[in-house]
C-alpha cells in the first residue's frame, strides 16, 4: 500500500518535470528568447544522442571529464586522509597547523588557477593540480575533525593494549572517523567536478567544459545545453554512487 502510493508520488513528480520541460519547450519555440542562447529541450537531447560515441561525440568528452575528476579526487582524498589523520591524532600538530588550515580553507580554489598556470603552464598537470588542491581541503578538514573527535577512552584502550601509533590510526582512529571522512569526500567530489570544468575552460583540455565553451563560441546552443545536462548527469551519478558506497561501508555501525 505504502509502496504503491510512493510510486504514484514518483509518477506525479515525473509529470511535473515533464510539464517543466514542456514549458521550456514553449519558451524556446515562442522566440521570446533568442535561439542563440536557448535551445529547445528536444534539440538539446538530440545533441547528446547524435554521435555520442563518435570521435567528436560528447561521449569521449564526458569520459575525459570523468577521468580527470576522479584522478584529482582520488589523489586529494589519499593525501587528505593521511595528513588529516596525522594532524587529527596529535594535539600538538593541531595547535601549530589548524590556524593556517583555517585560513586556506575559505580561499576560493579557483584563485589558485593562475598560480598553477605559472608553475605548470596550460597543461594537463595544471588542471589535475587545481582539482586535487580544491578537493583536498574538505577531505583534510573532515579527517582532522573525525580523528580528533574520537572517544578519548578508545585511545586509552589502544594505549593499554600497547598499540603502535600506526595501529592506533588504522584500527581505532580511521574506522571511527569514517563517517566524517566520507562526508568530506562527498563534498570533495562535488568540488572536483566544478574544478574540472574550470580547469578545462582555462587550460583548454578536452572535456565537457571545453565542449560547452566551444559550443557557446560557435553559437551552438543545443550542444551547449547538451554538455550542461551531461555535467548534471555526472554530478548526480557521483552523488548516488558515493552515498551507496557509504551505506555499504558503514553497515557495521549500529543503525541510527
Amino acid at each position, binding site marked *: 500500500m505504502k509502496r504503491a502510493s510512493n510510486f504514484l508520488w514518483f509518477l506525479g513528480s515525473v509529470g511535473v518535470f515533464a510539464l517543466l520541460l514542456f514549458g521550456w519547450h514553449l519558451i524556446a519555440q515562442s522566440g521570446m528568447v533568442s535561439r542563440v542562447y536557448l535551445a529547445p529541450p528536444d534539440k538539446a537531447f538530440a545533441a547528446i544522442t547524435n554521435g555520442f560515441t563518435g570521435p567528436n561525440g560528447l561521449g569521449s568528452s564526458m569520459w575525459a571529464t570523468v577521468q580527470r575528476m576522479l584522478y584529482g579526487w582520488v589523489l586529494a582524498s589519499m593525501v587528505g586522509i593521511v595528513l588529516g589523520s596525522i594532524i587529527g591524532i596529535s594535539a600538538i600538530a593541531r595547535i601549530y597547523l589548524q590556524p593556517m588550515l*583555517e585560513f586556506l580553507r575559505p580561499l576560493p580554489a579557483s584563485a589558485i588557477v593562475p598560480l598553477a598556470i*605559472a608553475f605548470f603552464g596550460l597543461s594537463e598537470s595544471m588542471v589535475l593540480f587545481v582539482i586535487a588542491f580544491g578537493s583536498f581541503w574538505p577531505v583534510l578538514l573532515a579527517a582532522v575533525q573525525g580523528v580528533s573527535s574520537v572517544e578519548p577512552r578508545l585511545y586509552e584502550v589502544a594505549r593499554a593494549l600497547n598499540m603502535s601509533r600506526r595501529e592506533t590510526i588504522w584500527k581505532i582512529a580511521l574506522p571511527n572517523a569514517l563517517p566524517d571522512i566520507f562526508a568530506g569526500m562527498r563534498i570533495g567530489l562535488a568540488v572536483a567536478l566544478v574544478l574540472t570544468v574550470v580547469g578545462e575552460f582555462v587550460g583548454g583540455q578536452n572535456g565537457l567544459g571545453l565542449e560547452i565553451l566551444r*559550443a557557446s563560441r560557435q553559437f551552438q546552443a543545443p550542444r551547449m545545453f547538451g554538455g550542461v545536462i551531461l555535467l548534471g548527469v555526472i554530478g548526480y551519478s557521483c*552523488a548516488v554512487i558515493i552515498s551507496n558506497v557509504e551505506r555499504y561501508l558503514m553497515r557495521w555501525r549500529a543503525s541510527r
Partner: protein
Amino acid sequence: MSALLSMRGLLVPALLLLGAEVLVNAADLSSNNIAPPSAAFAALLRIMLDGTLFVSTGQTLLATAMGLAVGGSLGLVAGILLGLSRTASRLMTVSLEFFRPVPAVALIPISMLVFGFGYAMEVAVVAFAAFWPMLIYCKGAIEAVEPQLLEVAQMLRLSYFDTVRKIVLPAALPRIFVALRTATGIALILGVTTEILSNPQGLGFAVMSAQQSLHPDNMIANIFWLGVLGVVVNSGLLWLQSRLFGNAGRPGGGR
C-alpha cells in the same frame, strides 16, 4: 578565534614564508612567474595605496552580494513553499534532482552569451549557485519547525502569509542563517571563479591579469587578499550568528 590568533599558530606559516623567501632568493628563482613573499607584500602595499585593490574588492563583493540577494531570496521562498507543503516537495523531487547537480560554473559560457561582460552575467551565475544551498537548507529548517507551532497557527486561523511571517520564519530563523552562511561562501567562490574565467572585473580578474601580464608579485598579493577576504566574511558571519542566536544555529543546538 583565539586559536587563530595564537602565536604558535603563526609559527608554521611564518617559517614557510621565510623558507619561500630564502629559497626564491638563494636559488634565484625570481622570474616572470614566481616572486618571493617580500615582493608580494610590497605589491600588496602598492595596490592598497593606489586603491586598485579596493576597487576590485568592491566589484567582487557587490556582484557577490547582488547574486546572493537574488538567488538567496528565491531559494528562501522556494524553501518555505516546499518545506511547508509535503505535496509540493514530493511533486518537485524529480525536477530538483535534475537541475540541482548542474555545476554553476558550467553556466558561465551561457551567461556570458546572454548578458555579455559586466555585473549581470556574474550576478546570474552567483544567483544560480546560491539558490540551491538556500533552498535545501531552508526546506530542512522549515521542516524542523515544531509541528505543534503549526497546529497553534491553524487554531488561530492565521492566513498562510501570517503563518509564515509570525510562526514559521521566527522559529526557523537560526537555521536559515546557517543556510545564508553556506550560500555566502559558495556565492563568493562563484563570483571569483566567474571573474577568473571570463568577467573582466573584480579580484578574480586582477589575479588572472597579473599572471598574464607576468606580475607574479601582484598575483600572489591578490590571492593572499582573497584568502583574507574569505576569512573575514566567514568569521564575520560566524560572529553575527553567535551574537544573534547563541547556540541555536549549531547542529543539535537550540532545542
